[in-house]
């Protein structure tokens, strides 16, 4: 509480699950799995976003990366279509594939936001799953 009457209060809060079931994602392709139009006096927090690569569908391939910074496949929250500029992301490498749930990604400016999952290779088709959770205040 900051002691002042502000418009920091919201009448409702809605927990929104993100679930992108196991899907074949062709090499170099991306899919918009959620589109979130945010209006004035609304706010959402991306609490977590997880990507799992279930399998590489192209047998015997050595992946050629299109976006080296984004791992084999990535899922992220975006304000634009540029997949290398996520507001929050989970990139599937051998180490990390989940956003930091202790540091939620807060968005409060009006606009259209997207959750995009992307295959960042040019030669490997992938089977991916994306799950996540966001909280919408309105």
């Amino acid at each position, binding site marked *: 509480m900051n002691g002042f009457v502000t418009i920091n209060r919201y009448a409702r809060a809605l927990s929104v699950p993100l679930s992108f079931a196991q899907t074949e994602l062709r090499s170099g392709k991306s899919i918009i799995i959620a589109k979130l139009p945010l209006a004035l006096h609304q706010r959402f927090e991306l609490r977590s976003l997880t990507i799992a690569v279930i399998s590489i569908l192209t047998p015997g391939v050595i992946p050629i990366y299109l*976006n080296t910074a984004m791992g084999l496949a990535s899922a992220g929250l975006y*304000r634009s279509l540029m997949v290398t500029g996520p507001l929050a992301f989970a*990139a599937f490498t051998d180490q990390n594939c989940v956003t930091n749930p202790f540091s939620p990604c807060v968005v409060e400016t009006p606009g259209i936001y997207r959750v995009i999952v992307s295959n960042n290779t040019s030669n490997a088709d992938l089977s991916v799953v994306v799950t996540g959770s966001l909280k919408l205040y309105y």
Partner: protein
Amino acid sequence: MNQLESALVIALRDTIKWESAGTGSDTFYVAASGSLTPVNADLPFDARVYQSRDRQLAYRDLIVSAAVVEVSIQVGDVWNYSTLKPNLQGPAPFTLPHLDAEAGTYSSQVRHVLNTSIPLDAARYADADLYGRDSLVYEILARACGSIFTEPSIPRLDPLGNTIPNTSVWSLAQGAPAQTDINAVLPLNRDLFKNPDMNLADRDNQLAGYVSRLAQVLKNPFENALRLYVQIESFGTIEREPDVYALISDDGTQRIFQTEPALSGANEIIYHTQHKTLQWIREDLNEVHVPQIYAMVIPGVELGQNIETLAQVPDRKDAQYWRGKAKLLKPTGLEIKDTDLYLTTTNNGSVIGGLMQRDTASLTVPNQILFNMEGTLPAGIYRVSALAAPTGLVELAGAQNTTYTSGTLGGATFEIDVASGNIGNKLYFVENGDGVFYNGSYYFAGDAFMGTTTVPGYTQSGIILSTIRQYSINFDLALPAGSWIVLMEYTNLTGTTDGFRLKAQYVATGAEAVTVIQDAAPIPFTTTNGNLIVTPAAGVDVANSEPFSFPIYWTGGGGQLHIRKLSFERTDVDAARYAMTGSFVGSLAYVDVNGENKKPGVLRWEFFSYGSHHGPSPFSTNYLEEGILPIQLRQVQVQTIGTFQTTPLSHGFQTWRQECLDRAERDIQQDYALAVNDYGTDIPTLRDTGSYWLPDATENWMSIAEVYCPRLREVPAIAQNAITDGRQYQVDTTLVVYHGSTFTEGQKFYGVATSGSLYSNGSVHQVGAFIKSKAGHVGKPALVPRGLYFDDTENRVKAYFDSPDATPILMACQPWMIAQGIYVAQPDFWMPENL
């Protein structure tokens, strides 16, 4: 010592009876001068005079009692410890008037009246001694208070210590609770005076008992405190700002105080009640602090470090404080660090290749561009981010022509009245007269000739003199094939004219020139010189993505032509693909993304290097595909990706930095509300007409937020005459001198109005919890005015609210925010992006 220690043995009663004390409004009021009702020995005995004096002395006891309560309250405020307090009759001031001439001895004795005394003895001996006892008790309390508190709650009577002594001895002075009063109806004998005086002496004894106990608390607050307020100093400047350490354990031997983050066995101060020592345990646990004999200031762990317990009430903390707290805990995960290598603007000499536009570097067609940066990089993984904006609008400053023509505000000003000797490598035009002879040829009025610096002079070839002016400027560029609209921003600078005849041509390599702007009719100029006019839109079909020339000819019209800007725009492409390789420190990386027209985004490459790097480390990128929509590259930043050296035993504190950030946000919001309240209706408007928000508005908005939060933003390289009152500065060079004090590298100081705004001998930066965002900061916590947004229709940043409602809020930084100069939280607040 010498704080009435012998009075510690006095048994305190739970009630002091005040029934004969005067109050502030009646005749027994103690004068501000401290004088009592005088006794005139020449007049007949009047019991009422002696009675009033006793009541005034009783009232002084009440004041001393109020002072004890006041100090007790301060002890509670500072250390959260509730001391014993005497009860009071009612409201009483706590500043004791004192007149040295009224006091007898200060030895705490009382010379009571005897059977052999005369009435005057009660005034000149007993009352005087009682007066002195009051002053002695009060002064010893005031001295104990003044020696410990930053802002003592009661003033001293004898600031220089000339008259009232310190003493550890207290005389009981035959004090006894008698509750008697001098009265004219009572027999005139010894007891008429002595009994009330013994009662007064008894009250003094009680108050001395309270003061002696309070002095003990003040002497060693660690024995009783439930909370400490401790700051860490290093060579005289603050290393860690004051923190509240709360008592978490007291087993009779060790009193353990701990501050946040309350890691197990860390960030503690331990007071050993038997050894009377203090020990500080930090969060990193790698160096042990040797316990020190208790004092308000003790040596710390490192050389020059001191641990100071502040006797003051904890104050409200600002965002910079929370930054300091946040960095005390290093979480688990990957750590992104900024480096010295970045470019916040790219329209400068650090960039080679591509097409330099008016305010940014760009790649209009597949091509290579190189960004020169310099600094130190450790070995590891590097993240290179570029703030990019795909856009069909290509803007060239007039001065970006290839014909060496410059002008005001980045424009190109055509030369007029060119004197012989000033001919350069330009195309010139002969006006009027009989013509000129230049470089072996005659040129007549209306002719154009190509000049060269090797032949700077010309001669008039006839009687009627001709004048020479510049005829053209030329631009070289490449654009994706397709239909484009061309616009020129122009003005007249000197002389008068009603219009210019202009011709512009598209000249593809090896092809015939195609006229884009016709000079059949002049384009009008009907405004004041210097006002900018835009030419009507003209279409040009660019055949391919090869470089082409675009000459502009001034074929007619007076005055002096100035072209400020040349722009090309295509509107038929909404989005495009950008496949680009990146090369940095001998490593290659790739991006392959889609970009939308006029919507900022971030291109990110990651590189790995085995060795550290010093000096120049250029980053180059090669734009391979698909070349249908130009892209601006406005900023570049290099970051490193490493692993946090996790603070020991901190696994349960992974939200700590986020918590600090949330607290900082609340403080900033509160400070912003205070500033808005102060401005009232005079608060400046930040939005432009049409609710547009420009980068300047961001700076002005930060200035409002900074009014009550002076350590809000970090500002690099403060000018040597720009130290501002209340703001904090940190030394970046070996040393600086401010107001006669020398500060060495890394030390901080505050600007003080009375110390002036000048410093010398080096440079400083302004300390703040937020820094201006750079290309790599997308997704980091940013401080954004409520209601600010990117309008997808106009592709511009707008604000729903003006300054009063533009409350600061923290949210993830978006690419367009970086372009607007929005500030992001310092890296000390950052959490790992992933787990």
